[in-house]
């Protein structure tokens, strides 16, 4: 007994393998006292850090959002800067070794000159290896206004010359694909956020109410969310999106799509929150609060909702990729975001037919971006779920 007390005080568990460690395994060297002082969120963060896929996913997601936020700066060109001499240009990767075999420290590119075969009228691009165009960081380029507010003309990287630099190739109108992807990210990555926010609001409030009150309210809610789950989502989205009037401006369409996407998502969230609330409702502190005379609303907002919070955050994180996919699918089919607003789905729509893909396969790159962000969110969400509620496994 004395041994046990001593070793616990030192924070080591020398006695008894069947005795659960006083400091649960969160990968850190902490004494019992330090551990007891940590807040719930600090605990979650420490557990989260342990999972490498989660951290990678989180980093990826943050990088994407930063890229979208600073698209004006990160992209070498504007959303619709056209280079009419370079339609459908293939990707032009930076090189270190030039045509003569010499190595240069600063990466450079060669100009891709458009050549038209006199006989077949086929357009091809040849590298003009006579002139090297070095790539500079924070290069001067086209002037722009960051977030339409701050005028600037330095871009993250660029070639300080009149030669177009297509890191990922160009499209049908000679617009740089990388720049369009970065600007398109703004739409793709935010449609989901707004939709998930609305979904969470509706889902958690309705879920808690339904779980807490039970009875008729619960029954109606269950029926309603079952209804939502019984209509396959994609056809329903397609139908609703097709109904948005053609005369609406792109902005209104954007909000319309957001609302459509969120309509179907709150159902499953509500169900899960309801389930958890049903369990929490019988806990001691709920009964104690009721005995102390707390109103229903107080109990809901002060006890039940915060206890659901970590769960809600996890579900939100896992719903965002669902929304992003939904928007991409709709825009890809031509039913979603309308040009000139651009999202990754719109970019993919331009690459839809087989001929385009055969000749200009780099136009598929937005698909890879979507896959990456979805994977990133999934890893992040899984990690959060394991961190927030390790007993749910």
């Amino acid at each position, binding site marked *: 007994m004395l041994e046990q007390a001593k070793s616990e005080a030192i924070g080591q568990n020398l006695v008894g393998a069947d005795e659960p460690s006083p400091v649960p395994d969160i990968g850190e060297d902490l004494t019992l006292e330090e551990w007891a002082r940590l807040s719930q969120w600090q605990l979650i963060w420490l557990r989260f850090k342990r999972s490498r896929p989660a951290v990678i996913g989180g980093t990826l997601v943050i990088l994407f959002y930063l890229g979208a936020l600073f698209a004006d700066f990160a992209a070498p060109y504007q959303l619709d800067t056209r280079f009419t001499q370079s339609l459908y240009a293939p990707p032009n990767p930076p090189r270190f070794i030039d045509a003569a075999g010499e190595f240069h420290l600063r990466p450079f590119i060669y100009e891709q000159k458009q050549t038209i075969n006199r006989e077949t009228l086929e357009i091809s691009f040849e590298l003009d290896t006579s002139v090297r165009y070095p790539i500079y960081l924070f290069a001067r380029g086209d002037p722009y206004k960051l977030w339409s507010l701050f005028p600037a003309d330095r871009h993250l990287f660029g070639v300080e010359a009149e030669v177009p630099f297509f890191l990922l190739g160009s499209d049908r109108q000679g617009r740089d694909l990388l720049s369009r992807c970065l600007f398109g990210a703004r739409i793709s990555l935010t449609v989901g956020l707004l939709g998930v926010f609305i979904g969470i609001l509706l889902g958690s409030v309705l879920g808690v109410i339904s779980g807490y009150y039970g009875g008729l309210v619960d029954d109606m809610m269950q029926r309603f969310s079952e209804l939502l789950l019984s209509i*396959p989502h994609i056809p329903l989205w397609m139908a609703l999106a097709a109904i948005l009037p053609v005369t609406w401006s792109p902005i209104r369409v954007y909000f319309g799509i957001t609302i459509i996407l969120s309509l179907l998502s709150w159902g499953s969230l509500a169900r899960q929150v309801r389930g958890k609330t049903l369990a929490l409702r019988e806990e001691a502190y709920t009964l104690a609060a009721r005995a102390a005379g707390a109103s229903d609303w107080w109990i809901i907002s002060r006890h039940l909702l915060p206890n659901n919070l970590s769960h809600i955050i996890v579900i939100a994180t896992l719903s965002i990729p669902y929304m992003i996919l939904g928007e991409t699918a709709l825009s890809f089919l031509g039913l979603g975001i309308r040009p000139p607003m651009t999202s990754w789905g719109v970019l993919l729509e331009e690459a839809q037919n087989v001929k385009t893909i055969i000749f200009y396969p780099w136009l598929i790159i937005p698909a890879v971006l979507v896959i990456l962000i979805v994977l990133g969110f999934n890893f992040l969400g899984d990690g959060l779920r394991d961190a927030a509620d390790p007993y749910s496994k």
Partner: protein
Amino acid sequence: MINFIIRRLLHTIPLFFMISIVVFAIISLPPGDYLTVRVAELERQGNQNAEQQLQGLRRRYGLDQPIYVQYWLWISNFVQGDFGESFDYNRPVAELIGDYIFLTVVLSVATLLFSWLVAIPIGVYSATHQYSLGDQFFSLLSFIGLGTPGFLLALILMVISVYVFGSPIGGLFSADMESQPWSLAKVLDLLQHLWLPIILIGISGTAELVRIMRGNLLDILGQQYVQSARGRGLAEHKVIWKHAVRMAINPLISLIGLQFPSIISGSIIISIVLGLPTTGPFLLRALRAQDMYFAGSFLMLLSLMLIVGNFLADLALAWVDPRISYE
């Protein structure tokens, strides 16, 4: 058991009606009475009888009557198999829709079977050889599979297939078999072409199943009764398959009901990308042309498919776990 079936059926019927209301609302939302537009269009093309033809339709759907009458006429026609008239093709929807819905059902069921047939062995292998190279490989594969949406994969595969095979993949039948009446040869042809869409649609469902199966089986393999079975000298494969896996599969059966909607949704998009003659491309075309009766019928039938699927899944669940039938 019979009680349970009856209860589920009674539960399903109001659901069906609620869905029909939602779908009817969608059908009615686009502004304008297409019949007036249609009459004008047909008369412009020189069809003098247009007005009379469409009077019949007007009566049938009560387009000059209040909306609840319209709804009632529509739904009573619908359950009798009259799905309305397609304004795009100018033929009754029921004529057009049959083949496509049938193929969609075939595709969805085949995908469901595929995902189960593949996921369970992989899940069992992963659990029994935990942390082995194979397990890690499959885990990685299923992580990627979970995240990658089918239609994007379809696009990427099309690009790859062009470079590797020289021609794009797509379609459910070879060119010459497409319009032939059903025969054994056609079925075989279908099976040959079916595997690619099945993989594309089923990959995320399979990945999820593998992960859950692995997790469940790992839990069960740590239980006491497994140890006692081993201790009594039961052969390992019997321990795993006859006892552990049977327990692990139980929770999975309840997943079938949840898998079905995403399979149907997935099949819609993938069939659009690959150009398969199932629901997808025609639903899209109907929506674009605002051919609302056609599109609405698709929606209703897809939802019906889903309801039936859920119902069958509930039955399967109750058969496996009789406790459910007492709920």
